[in-house]
């Protein structure tokens, strides 16, 4: 194992640790973040370092502890609320939409909510319908929120601090399949405002994020073998979307494939497609293609789940067809 190697899980943990050391107003709150060490072991060891007040286990009360995070932010703290998984966040959605995202406006600018909510998202681990939702793109519909989807070690390590610095509520979605991602993170600053061009090519633009960012890169490798050079964009921030990066790429490649683990209809892929059709319509040489999750509750059986969510071969085929047409 080379010097400086880390995992996505450890990078996220380091980011939390650093923030808590750096600012006493920061605390971590959620189900089993303390004694258990975090459902996905992200907060392992933090209870020992910071104690039960700042690494705060909560009862199974999503609405109350997410809302309490909003209140604590209003009271001058900088809470990091962990909702174990996006599947359970629906129980707190009223607090997120009607309070966190809305208070600043309803109060005429008096009450900003400097809150960070972290949650695990995504399918791919045979956890079945109620534990496999990919709703980060759905959350991106809500004005007043910022939505982040770290897909790299650098973003896992670097996005939390600017999120905590942000005066408004920021939701961070960690795809469950990424925690064991490992490598040596590249140094350098991390912003929470721009999409990233992960690879450059002139024939087609592949757009992914979170759980699909890696798959788009693998697809680009496969396409390169066929002589198709792909621009690969990792959106990173799902709200507000960085249109400039997308349009710049489309204006060079004239072909687009959007890859989204969310359900197709009304998913984030639709918004990206609509914006391209609005802002780069005359740049398009072919219809915009979308590779999304089949519109079904995610099934348990491995072969069914694999068939339901976006996979590399489907991305490759979609890109091939886009370029061909």
């Amino acid at each position, binding site marked *: 194992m080379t010097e400086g190697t880390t995992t996505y899980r450890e990078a996220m943990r380091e980011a939390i640790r650093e923030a808590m050391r750096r600012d006493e107003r920061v605390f971590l709150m959620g189900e089993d973040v303390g004694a258990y060490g975090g459902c996905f072991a992200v907060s392992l060891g933090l209870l020992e370092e910071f104690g039960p007040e700042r690494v705060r286990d909560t009862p199974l009360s999503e609405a109350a502890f997410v*809302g309490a995070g909003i209140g604590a932010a209003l*009271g001058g703290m900088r809470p990091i609320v962990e909702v174990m998984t996006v599947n359970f966040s629906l129980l707190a959605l009223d607090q997120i939409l009607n309070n966190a995202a809305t208070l600043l406006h309803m109060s005429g600018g008096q009450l900003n909510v400097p809150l960070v909510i972290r949650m695990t998202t995504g399918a791919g681990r045979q956890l079945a319908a109620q534990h496999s939702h990919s709703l980060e793109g759905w959350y991106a519909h809500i004005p007043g929120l910022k939505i982040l989807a770290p897909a790299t070690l650098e973003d896992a390590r670097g996005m939390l601090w600017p999120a905590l610095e942000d005066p408004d509520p920021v939701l961070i979605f960690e795809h469950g399949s990424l925690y064991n991602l490992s490598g040596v993170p590249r140094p350098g600053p991390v912003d929470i405002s721009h999409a990233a061009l992960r690879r450059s090519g002139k024939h087609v633009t592949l757009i992914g994020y979170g759980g699909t960012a890696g798959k788009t890169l693998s697809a680009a490798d496969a396409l390169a073998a066929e002589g198709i050079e792909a621009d690969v964009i990792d959106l990173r921030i799902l709200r507000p979307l960085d249109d400039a990066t997308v349009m710049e790429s489309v204006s060079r490649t004239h072909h687009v494939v959007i890859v989204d683990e969310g359900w197709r209809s009304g998913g984030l892929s639709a918004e990206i497609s609509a914006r391209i059709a609005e802002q780069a319509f005359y740049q398009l040489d072919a219809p915009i293609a979308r590779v999304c999750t089949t519109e079904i509750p995610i099934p348990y059986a491995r072969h069914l789940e694999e068939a339901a969510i976006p996979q590399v071969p489907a991305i490759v085929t979609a890109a091939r067809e886009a370029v061909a047409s």
Partner: protein
Amino acid sequence: MVSKGRPRASQHSELLRQMLRIRRFEERCVELYSSEKIRGFMHLYIGEEAVAAGVCQALTPDDAVVSTYREHGHALARGVPATAIMAEMYGKAAGCSRGRGGSMHLYDAARGFYGGSAIVGGGLPLAVGLALADRFQGRNRVTTCFFGDGAMAEGAFHECLNLAALWGLPVLFACENNLYAMGTALAKTHAQTDLALRAAGYGIAAWPVDGMDAPAVAQAAARATESIRAGAGPHFLELRTYRFRAHSMYDPERYRDKAEVERWKKRDPIDTLIARMTAAQELTGDDLAMLEKEIVEEIDRAVAFAEQAPIEPVEDLTRFVYSEIPPSGGTMPARRAEAAS
């Protein structure tokens, strides 16, 4: 707040003044609603004034208040200027929420008034969180959360009472039991209608109070807040009161009979206190006339202010969706939120 030193008479006259301000303010609101100066949903507090007046008398300027959509009384008793409230209901830029909130969303960060929630029970978690922030920052203040009998059926009530009790947070849960949730009577909402008993089930101090008796409310609130400040954790008061008017401006009141309303009106908290003060020679007819005069003038000023106040320019439509203070690159942002408390 109720300082033992302070003479009872002055406490009573302050309670009377606050109740009358609320009553007259809302009576004017009704007229303004008919003349369409005020729009949207408007929920009147008439009949329940003793609750806001009594509870707020027990609070210090540092304390925090989380309210509901039936909040004119809470806001006025908390000291939010009538001018700013009226301008808000007119939808003017000078309103306490810059015209964006209206009757259901009054805010005044400087006075720790964290506003009205139009989602029943939606304010409860905020109150728990504000109290948690105080614990972290060593501020000895009380966060009072007003909510109704109907709100107690929501899951949020259960989660928040448990959380506040579990963590021993300085929250005063002020339940305004006016016997109805819109048109649904208490007994059709709760299997167990003794609400104070229910709250006590979470292991916190809870008791019922005659919500039509302002001094009784003030005493109970003083007792509760002193105990909370002393570190005894959350307290719950069931304030037994009654709504004299319709639930909102659109409610034909099919669910209760006039006789019941009339019976309760005989216990009007304002008449009751006036009678008591008069009997105790704490109040003369002239005092009352003077008080009414001051209040009418205050409300006239508020209406005049709201009438002439400018509206928010449409160009500012998209402001306040995200903060205008840019995140301070590298260093932590200033403690804006604290300025609010």
